[in-house]
């Protein structure tokens, strides 16, 4: 007896590969998400890389910051921009007419985005080491990867929400308006205590701030315990998922009923 539907694992593998190629072959995306963090690190991080900062160094602290920034922008853009593009081009209809499993579709995007995030962090670590002599140990790197990749879920959900709510061009603008100010106001570019007072008072309520806390904790550059940051992120994840699911069903009612 032949199978009625295709096996899951090969479908997931194909879907993940295509999603990864989407990110890799978009030069704008690769530059923005891999080159920018490295460039920012070169500007802000290299000069005082070896100055102590809490239980770490400035070099390590900023490595964690820009890793968090890289994963934030990758998660938001890879989900938000791709969903908006697929809706705009009609690819969504073609995929729905085909027996693609929704789980393979979503998981493929997530795996590709995680792989890209991992790549961005590894390249940043390499740069920090070669250009700044900042030694990121393997256990620290592993801890940072696990925390950031799991902690990216709220941004994945927010990306989906934007992708379902906005057209492609609007989505890009909205995602930029989310990523840059949020990262800045959370101290991912410049430490929070060097920012204006009103930003300092807003920062600790932002998802990116707690995402940063997860990263800083991995390199020993914060005193906040990680469960607190994780709890904040779970809350934001629930909120953004709720918005994304509502946006998804709105689209369903409009296009597929």
């Amino acid at each position: 007896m032949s199978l009625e539907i295709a096996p899951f694992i090969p479908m997931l593998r194909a879907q993940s590969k295509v999603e990864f190629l989407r990110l890799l072959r978009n030069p704008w995306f690769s530059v923005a998400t891999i080159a920018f963090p490295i460039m920012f690190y070169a500007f802000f991080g290299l000069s005082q890389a070896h100055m102590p900062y809490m239980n770490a160094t400035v070099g390590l602290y900023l490595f964690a910051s820009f890793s968090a920034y890289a994963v934030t922008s990758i998660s938001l853009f890879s989900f938000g921009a791709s969903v908006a593009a697929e809706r705009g081009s009609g690819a969504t209809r073609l995929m729905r007419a085909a027996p693609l499993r929704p789980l393979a579709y979503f998981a493929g995007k997530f795996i590709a985005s995680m792989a890209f995030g991992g790549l961005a962090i590894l390249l940043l670590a390499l740069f920090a080491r070669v250009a700044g002599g900042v030694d990121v140990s393997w256990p620290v790197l592993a801890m940072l990867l696990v925390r950031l990749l799991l902690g990216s879920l709220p941004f994945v959900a927010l990306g989906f929400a934007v992708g379902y709510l906005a057209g492609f061009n609007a989505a890009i603008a909205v995602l930029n308006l989310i990523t840059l100010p949020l990262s800045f106001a959370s101290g991912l570019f410049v430490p929070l205590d060097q920012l204006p007072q009103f930003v300092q008072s807003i920062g600790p309520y932002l998802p990116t701030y707690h995402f940063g806390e997860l990263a800083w904790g991995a390199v020993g550059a914060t005193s906040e315990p990680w469960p607190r940051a994780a709890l904040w992120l779970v809350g934001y994840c629930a909120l953004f998922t709720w918005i994304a699911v509502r946006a998804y069903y709105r689209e369903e009612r409009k296009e597929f009923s």
Partner: protein
Amino acid sequence: MSAGTGEDAVLFRGVSKSYGRLLALDAIDLRIPRGESVAILGPNGAGKTTALSLLLGLRRASAGAISVLGGDPRARSVRARIGAMLQSSGLPEYLRVDEALELFRSYYPAPLPIDELLSLAGLDDIAGSRIARLSGGQVQRLYFALALCGDPELLVLDEPTVGLDVEARRSLLATIAAIAERGRTVLMSTHYLEEADAIADRIVVIDRGRIIADGSPRDVKAGVARKRMSFRTRSPLDDARFARDGERYDALTESPESLLRDLFARGIEIDDLTVTGATLEEAFVALTSGEHRHVA
């Protein structure tokens, strides 16, 4: 396993679909046995795309029952046996042709080999090209190949030749006809009678959400492929086949040649003769204004 051999490829019973207050399909009954190739012909806005969207499970009927290959097209196991080419569907432009095919092959339990897909759709030479660089005709061929990925029992093509030049259109139609000859059920929508004629064993004409004709290409063509003939003559002509306006006479006919032969045989002098093909739109008007017509 649900893949019996007896059931119809498509069965619509009293299917209606409305978008808000717009009634796009009005109580359609349609039965397509397996192995038939059927063209759904109709002007823009007739309800062709709506009918195909319902059939593909992309939309939900407001009333009536739809069965495709013996099941509900919303079920993944049924969709795995259908191949679809949609209007205005986009592809990831950053992929190469072979990468897109590999992706779609992974969606199906028993996909066709990639080499076979490339040669069936005539894509061998451009397997390694980025989709962004393909011509319109090549893109349509790729969509066609994607529809074939799962070795479908039912192939659904929504206006596959839209936007193609004459050559690309002819070559895609030839490819579709070759697939239909392999015994697959093919259902194609179009607003060109010639295309329907080239592909289908049967033509279903839809207008304003209703089926207004359903029969073999010959029968349907006889019903719609009229010519409008017009001339002037001084000889008084008392003939019910012509509408008269002063010295000008007008007729809608399937064969202007035989009418003319007849006139000349009667020694009637005419001038200022024009013969124009009735457009499909005119033909539809002729069909719709008459009785609900079944030419089968």
